[in-house]
Each structure stands twice: as structure tokens, then as C-alpha cells.
């Protein structure tokens, strides 16, 4: 039977970065991806910040950069705008990418580092030692069904993740921690080419927001995410998006050339992400930012830590959960505080009515705030409306 030090399940961005760093550190790595093509179909708004790219060793490449914006614009229910420029550190969106090309570029990096990638290979179950340690996977592929042994298996299988659950990690999250999302790639429109726009309010996106991320002067990703707990009728997400577009002549005249749907985890961090012989990374580990719903950055940051931990584990010959805790401690140190704070802010935000949102954004638009950080925003709002911030004062 084939044996690898590390089997990575899922070739999304977090999986490819994990595989790359594990392979660079000398591990033998097999990456299994059930799709026939890495990165396609796209399930993403394609907006990323630039600030974390260097940290995970990704080279900026014009092949996957669609469009650069100056900053972000928050729009209140009454239409008041608050703009923030990306050059001021902390901004969340600066570059709109071609996600399919981006994912392929990352997979290419992983393969060049020595990882092996197999497509059309769905992992259907885990295998265990008698002790309970995960020691491999069962795969369905073009070659038929087979088993592969591994020192450790990494579940980087996205929002739909089963690997964690099969391995005994509880990754279930509550309806108010799940976003139902849909997006149209629209052409023949004139989006504001300089800003990624976010529209708040119960009319457009209860418990979430509508985004317009320009991909060029004449095209954009227009999408909506609403909390599952706010869905009344099946298909609400699509109805909200259609309503938003219907109400805006500059979008209504556009044409849709791609539909994207998906679920986004917006929960607080999980209690555990490792077991003996098993790690979870990226959306599978619910590391997505619960406020912005951006998951690419955190998945890649955690993936690097996972890959480095795994290459050490190979050298030590130790894939026990106590050794793999290095990964868990590492990602928590780097991401947990922000994830937790932004989850609290999300919890607060979903309870706000349109009136309050209008007040908040008008405070911000009059302020000289130059940083899109939750901390700065709350601080600014507290000056004028202390009662709005009182319940989450401890965040500050």
C-alpha cells in the first residue's frame, strides 16, 4: 500500500500552502482533490488584502490580479457612504483576484516544492490505528477505490468539510454562524472602479452585506451573504441579490456571466483542530473571518503554520496530537484574538436595526478615521453613541 508522510485533502488555497510548506520541509506529501480542475468552479468574491501575501510566501503575479482598488466603501441603509483607503493599514480588500488562476498558481507552487497532486480523487473515509490515531484515507478516483497510509491527514476540505467530523472533531456550527451566499459576475456595468463596496441593512442583506467588487472598469462581482438564521424561505439569498440589482439601474442593465454560490462559516474559533494524526486548516477549521467573511488569508496563514509543523513532525517521527498542538498553538497565537473579536462584533452587528446602522455609518463618515479595523471603528462610534458599544466594551 502506498504511504506518504502527509495526505492533504483539498487543493484550495489553504491546502496548497499546507502542502507546499510540508514538502519544502522534507515531508512526502500527497494532495487529493475531488474536483477535476483546481480552482474551478470559483466559490468566492475574490477580494483580498495585500498585507498578508508576503507572510505566506506568495509571489504577486499579474496572471491572477484582476483589478486593484484604492479602498473600501461602506454604505448604510439610507445610502450614506463611508470610505476608507487601503493604504491605511488594516484595510481588508485591496486586490480583486482571478480565484481560479490564483488557486492553480498556489497548487503549482506546492507541486514544485515536491508535493504530488491527484485530481478527481474524493476522500470518502479515514482509516485509524487501533489506538484511534488517524493513519490514512480511502479514496475514490479515476483509478478506482484505494487506500493510502499517512503519518498525518490534513482536512483542508473547505466549508463542506467532513474530514474533521470523521476524525471526531466537532465542526458543526449554529445557524447564526453560517452564511448563505450567492454572487453574480456582471459585465456591461460601470462599478466604482476605485472601491470595493459593502452595503449594509436589513433591506438588502439581513445579518450580512451585499458586496460589489470591481473586476475591471466594466465588470464586477456582485454578491450577497445572509445569515442562515435570517433565512425565511429557501432561496432567500438569491431573492435578496435580485432585489438589490433590480433597485439599481446601473446594475440592472448589466449581464450575468457567472453564478457562484456557497456557504461561509462565520463562527467563533473551534475548540480543537488537531487529533492524533489529524489536522484541520482553513474553512474546514472555521478560520474564516466572521465579520468580513474573508477566508483566503487566514487559511493560507494557518496553512503555512500547519505545513511547517508537519515537516517538524516528520523529522521527529511524531504525529501525536500533543506534537501537532504546535500547529494549533501557532494559529491561535496568530489569528484567534482577531477571530474572536470579529465574531463578537458580528454578533453585535446582526442585532442592529437599520436606524442604528445609519447612525453608525454617519458617525464614521464624519470622522477622520483612517483604518478599517473593528477596534478603531468601535472606538469612534463610542465617542458619539456610547450605548451602542456598551455591551461589547470589553472588546476595546
Amino acid at each position: 500500500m502506498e504511504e506518504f508522510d502527509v495526505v492533504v485533502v483539498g487543493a484550495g488555497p489553504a491546502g496548497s500552502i499546507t502542502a507546499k510548506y510540508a514538502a519544502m520541509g522534507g515531508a512526502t506529501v500527497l494532495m487529493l482533490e475531488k474536483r477535476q480542475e483546481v480552482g474551478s468552479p470559483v466559490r468566492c468574491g475574490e477580494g483580498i488584502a495585500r498585507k498578508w501575501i508576503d507572510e505566506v510566501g506568495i509571489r504577486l503575479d499579474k496572471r491572477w490580479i484582476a483589478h486593484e482598488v484604492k479602498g473600501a466603501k461602506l454604505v448604510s441603509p439610507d445610502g450614506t457612504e463611508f470610505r476608507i483607503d487601503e493604504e491605511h493599514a488594516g484595510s481588508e480588500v485591496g486586490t480583486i483576484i482571478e480565484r481560479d488562476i490564483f488557486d492553480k498558481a498556489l497548487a503549482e507552487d506546492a507541486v514544485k516544492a515536491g508535493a504530488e497532486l491527484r485530481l478527481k480523487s474524493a476522500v470518502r473515509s479515514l482509516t485509524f490505528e487501533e489506538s484511534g490515531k488517524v493513519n490514512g484515507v480511502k479514496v475514490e478516483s479515476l483509478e478506482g477505490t484505494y487506500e493510502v497510509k499517512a503519518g498525518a491527514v490534513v482536512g483542508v476540505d473547505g466549508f463542506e468539510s467532513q474530514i474533521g467530523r470523521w476524525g471526531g472533531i466537532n465542526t458543526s456550527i449554529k445557524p447564526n454562524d453560517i452564511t448563505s451566499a450567492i454572487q453574480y459576475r456582471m459585465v456591461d456595468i460601470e462599478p466604482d472602479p476605485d472601491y470595493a463596496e459593502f452595503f449594509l441593512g436589513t433591506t438588502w442583506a439581513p445579518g450580512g452585506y451585499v458586496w460589489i467588487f470591481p473586476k475591471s472598469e466594466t465588470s464586477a462581482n456582485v454578491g450577497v451573504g445572509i445569515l442562515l438564521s435570517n433565512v425565511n424561505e429557501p432561496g432567500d439569498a438569491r431573492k435578496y441579490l435580485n432585489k438589490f440589482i433590480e433597485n439599481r439601474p446601473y446594475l440592472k442593465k448589466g449581464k450575468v456571466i457567472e453564478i457562484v454560490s456557497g456557504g461561509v462559516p462565520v463562527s467563533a474559533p473551534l475548540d480543537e483542530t488537531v487529533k492524533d494524526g489529524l489536522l484541520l486548516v482553513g474553512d474546514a477549521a472555521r478560520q474564516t473571518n466572521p465579520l468580513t467573511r474573508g477566508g483566503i488569508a487566514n487559511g493560507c496563514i494557518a496553512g503555512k503554520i500547519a505545513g511547517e509543523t508537519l515537516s517538524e513532525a516528520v523529522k521527529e517521527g511524531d504525529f501525536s496530537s500533543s506534537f501537532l498542538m504546535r500547529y494549533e498553538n501557532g494559529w491561535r497565537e496568530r489569528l484567534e484574538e482577531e477571530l474572536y473579536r470579529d465574531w463578537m462584533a458580528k454578533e453585535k452587528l446582526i442585532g442592529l436595526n437599520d436606524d442604528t446602522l445609519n447612525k453608525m455609518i454617519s458617525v464614521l463618515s464624519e470622522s477622520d478615521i483612517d483604518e478599517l479595523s473593528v477596534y478603531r471603528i468601535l472606538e469612534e462610534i463610542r465617542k458619539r453613541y456610547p450605548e451602542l458599544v456598551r455591551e461589547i466594551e470589553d472588546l476595546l
Partner: protein
Amino acid sequence: MIRIDVSKCMHCGACVGTCPVNAMFLNDAALEVYDNCIDCGLCVKVCPVAALTMIKK
């Protein structure tokens, strides 16, 4: 019981990640629902394109 309208399903896995009892799997282009489904209906609600319906057994 959950019925899948295959002509609407986008194979995005929003339902699979939402299912609280692991009763679904998305095998790339085919969504599978298993017998341990508890008819909670969360998958029906989370589906962004209303491809799932609950039918009485």
C-alpha cells in the same frame, strides 16, 4: 426526506457544511443524502438557490 433538484443544484456544498449530523456528501458533481438525515431542514434553508425540498415520508 430531502429531495435534490439536480437541475438547480450548484454543487457548492453549503448544505453539506450546514448538516448537523453528517448526512450529506458532495462527490464533486453529485450530492448524496444518507439515511441518518433527521429532517431538520437546515440544508433546505441554507441552499442559496432553493435546490432542496423536504418531502414527507
